[in-house]
Every structure is written in C-alpha cells, then in structure tokens.
C-alpha cells in the first residue's frame, strides 16, 4: 500500500510542477499579449480593457490558480488566432495524434519484440554485425528524414501510399490506415531499434541467472527454458521502455506530422508558435506533458502489479 501512496504523491507533485514550469515559461514571453492581439496601433483604453478581461492585470499567482482551475474544468481558453475555444480545437486534432502514436507503438512492439527475441537467440558473427548496424542507424537517423525516404520509396516510386494528407477514420478506414502507415513507420523504426537493443541485453542478462542453470540441470530442453523462464523474466523490464517509447513517439510526432501535413496536435503546435497564439501553445504543451506523466504513472503501477517483487528504492 505504501508503494501506491508514494507513487501517487510523486505523480500529483510532478503534475503540479509540470504545470508550474509551463506557466512560468510562458510568463517570460516578451511583449504584452493584449497588444499582440489588438495590433500596434490599438487604442490604449482598448488594450487596458482587454488586459482586464484576459486577467493580465492580476498577479502571476492569481493567474496561475485561475488557469489551473479553468484547465481542470475543461476550459482551456480561446485561441487568439482562430477565435475558437482551445478545447474544441484539441478535440478535433487529438484523434489524429493519438491514432498516429498508438499505430506506431503497435508497429514497434509487433515488429520489435519478435525480431528482438529472434536476433538475441542467434549468436553468429554476421547477425551480430547486422544487428548493431541496424540498431545504431535506427537511433541515429532523424525520424523526419526517414519519413522523406519512406515517401520517396513507397509513395513516389511504388505508389502504395499517399505522399501526404490525412483521411479521417469516419470517411474511409482503409484510407485512414494508408495515410497513417508511413508516418507511423517513420516513428516506429527508431523505436524498434531501441526495443531490439534492450531485449537483447535483458535476455543475455537473464540467461546467465541461476534459475536457468537449475532448469538446464533438471533436463529441460532449451526451447522450454527460453519461453517458460527467460522470456517471462525478460519481458517485465520491457514494460518500462513502453513509457519511454510513448514519450518519444509523442515528441517525434510533432515533427513527423509536419512532414505529412497531418492535422494533429504537432502541426497545430508549430503553426500556433508562428502566429504567437499563446493560449493554444501553452495548453498543447501542458496536454502532451500530462499524457507523458500519466502514462509513466500507470506503467509504474502496472509494473508492481505484474511483478510484486518490486520495492521502493532507498
């Protein structure tokens, strides 16, 4: 029980800190937001009035509290540029980013886990070389450049997938999958490299453990040792990198969405920075950070449920 309470306290305090950091960073912003909205030749009285409705005349602490209160009640403010509630715009765009993230995570695990297990069991010189070549390149290639290569290969040359753009699920599910496949693959390849590397290391560590020697001396065949004993223990730590992969995917999707002109959070974020749409940027940054913190919290809890041996450190 103490484990869960401590994790919950850490989760809540991290959430609060994340919101404070986001709020403070946008406080350093040079210039007066009211002035930016109304333009340079605005009447000072108008500016003063807008400052009051936006709450800019109050202290930073007060503004933080109202911002948090509003955000918690689902009111994310209004976009300066689009004159629309930020919440509505997020609801429109979130499905794209989430489908992209889930799709690429699915690809990463579906390809990475079997491939990692297969490769780890091979001990040849050639396979070791290919493995290190692939994993080193996988973590070194910029995912958006990988996206370019995939477009050139699969869209331009083989004409299998659209070059850019997004088909909503409601219109055409197959079109949606087609439009998400290349972006997901571009995000998944670095992830696959990470999974393979990790799995190989944990499998090697586990196969040196005493329980493997015991199983072997009992006369169990190698296949059984691998699947019944080693894999079970090696897969538990993999759960932790799922959290890491989700964070990487969300971060990477900011750039990759722009390559494919996908109407998700990432592309909105970049256009909003260009138009200095502060409420929109602030909310999206907070939103992504909250997703990351929450997923890590869930993973911590899951980890403990699956493997009760885990104790609090220190």
């Amino acid at each position: 029980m103490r484990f869960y309470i401590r994790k919950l306290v850490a989760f809540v305090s991290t959430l609060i800190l994340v919101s404070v950091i986001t709020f403070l960073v946008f406080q350093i912003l040079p210039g007066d937001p009211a002035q930016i909205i109304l333009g340079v030749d605005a009447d000072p009285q108008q500016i003063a009035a807008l400052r009051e409705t936006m709450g800019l005349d109050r202290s930073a602490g007060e503004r933080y509290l109202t911002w948090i209160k509003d955000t918690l009640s689902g009111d994310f403010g209004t976009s300066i540029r689009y004159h629309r509630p930020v919440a509505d715009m997020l609801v429109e765009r979130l499905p794209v980013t989430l489908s992209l993230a889930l799709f690429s995570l699915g690809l990463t695990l579906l390809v990475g886990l079997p491939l990692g297990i297969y490769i780890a069991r091979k001990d040849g010189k050639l396979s070791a070389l290919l493995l290190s070549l692939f994993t080193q390149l996988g973590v070194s290639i910029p995912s958006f450049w990988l996206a370019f290569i995939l477009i050139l290969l699969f869209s331009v040359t083989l004409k299998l997938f659209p070059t850019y753009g997004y088909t909503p699920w409601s219109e055409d599910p197959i079109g949606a999958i087609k439009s998400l496949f290349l972006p997901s693959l571009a995000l998944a390849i670095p992830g696959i490299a990470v999974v393979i590397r990790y799995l190989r290391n944990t499998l090697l560590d586990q196969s040196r453990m005493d329980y493997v020697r015991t199983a072997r001396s009992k006369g169990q065949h190698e296949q059984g040792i691998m699947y019944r004993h080693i894999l079970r223990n090696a897969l538990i730590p993999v759960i932790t990198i799922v959290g890491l992969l989700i964070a990487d995917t969300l971060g990477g999707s900011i750039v990759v969405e722009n390559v494919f002109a996908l109407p998700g959070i990432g592309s909105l974020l970049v256009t909003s920075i260009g138009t200095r749409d502060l409420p929109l940027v602030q909310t999206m940054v907070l939103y992504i950070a909250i997703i990351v913190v929450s997923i890590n919290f869930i993973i911590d809890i899951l980890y403990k449920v699956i493997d009760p041996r885990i104790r609090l450190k220190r």
Partner: protein
Amino acid sequence: MNFKQLFKSKPLVIGSSLIGALLMLMLISLFYTPYGPNEMNPSMRLAGPQLTHLFGTDNFGRDIFSRIMNGAQTAFLIGFSSVAIGLVFGVLIGAIAGYFGGWLDEIIMRIIDAMLAFPGILLAIMLVSVFGPGLNNTIIALGIMSIPSFSRIARSGFIQYKEFDFVKASIAKGAGALRIIFYHILPNMVSSLVVATSLRFSGSILAEAGLSYLGLGVQPPNPSWGRMLNEAQPFMINAPWYVLITGMVITIMVLGFNLIGDGIRDLYDRKG
C-alpha cells in the same frame, strides 16, 4: 588505458573517423568552400551531382556541397555550446543534489523529473516559442534540454562516491564540500560524463535538425542542415539527391557521436 586499446574498439574508430572527417570539412569551410554558400546561379537550378557541383545544386542554383560544409560550422557550434551548457549546469545541479541529499535532493530531482515530462524536442520548442527562433536561442533551448540527463548521471555518481573511504577520509581531514566535490569526486566520474557528452552531442544535433526543419531553429542567413531539409522537401521528387545527401550528412554526424559514446562505454565496462 593505452592507445592500442582505443584502436581495438571498432565503434570508437569508426565513430571518430566520421566525426574527424566532418570536423575537417568544417575547418576547411572556415577558409575555403568551392562556391559561396549563398552564391546563386540561376542557370544551374536543381542540377544533379556532377564534377563541378559534387552534391548538385538547390532551387536557387546554390552549390549544396558548399552549403553543407558551411552548415557543419553551425552543427558543431550548436552541438558544442548546448552540450557545454548542459554539462556545466547539469553536473553542478546533480552534484548538489547527490552530495548534500535530503530535502534539497528531493526538490531538485522532482524538478528534473518534471522537465523530463516534456518529450523530445517539446521542451526546446516551448523555450524557442518564448525566446523566439535564432542561433543563440536554439543553443540556450537545447542546452536547457540537456541538463536533466547530465544531472541524473552526476547525482547517482555523487551518491555512490560520497560513501567511499577516500571521501570520508578527506572529510575527516577537514576538506570543504567544494574541494571534495570538484577535487576528489568529480575526477572519478570523467568516463561516464564523457560518454554522456558524446551521446548528448548527437541528441543536440538531432534536435537542432528537427527545430530548424520546423522553422523554429536557426534562421537564414545562418546555414543549417535542418533548414536545408525544409527547403529541399518541395523538390523531393525532382531533386531527390538534395534531400538524401543533406539527411545523410546529419545521420553521419549523429551516428559518429553515438558510436564514440558507445565505444568509450564498452572500453570502461570491460575494464571495470
């Protein structure tokens, strides 16, 4: 550790050769490039790789090879400066947290954890959106982005080493905290910090490429590989070499630093 051992590590040799080659290109570009990086030649738009233009030309007829040489200056400058910022502040913060411990450690590490909640280049994007784009702001944003990884490594090192007898002995002899931190403990952590520096270097290069590709990083006329990829994208079908070569150079630099980092880690792991 002697030089023979260094040469036996394949990742280290390959990585250093890649980085060495890019470093040479960068140094040469300070004095000489085949063409001016912004020299336009309207009659040579989007020309393919050939003897006079090794990597071809872009949509303004500018020589891509010269622009890549020039872009190496920005890449090394940003990598070096942002990693230096991250190293200095990260190690300082981690040393304070790890050495003194207690509530100070608790608070500092909570903040570091909160910083890690902003995935990938999101932290840099947030900072750049506030400071505005440009070379200096990109360096600062990427520097702040590298602080958490350095401070975590420094902290765990300090927690480990402060229990060692040689540290306890110097405390007993009356050495001050500063002397112990910098003179006694820090030298023991050089290897893990070198590895982290190399890996962070590739992280910074990747992040800069992403930021500049999005138009949020380095602005013209400063050359940047990420920005070149942004400019190359519309011509991807007609001039695939532009996109392919530029991205390959970024990959080589990232790969080089990753290999150096991994190579050094392997050497120390084998020793320890």
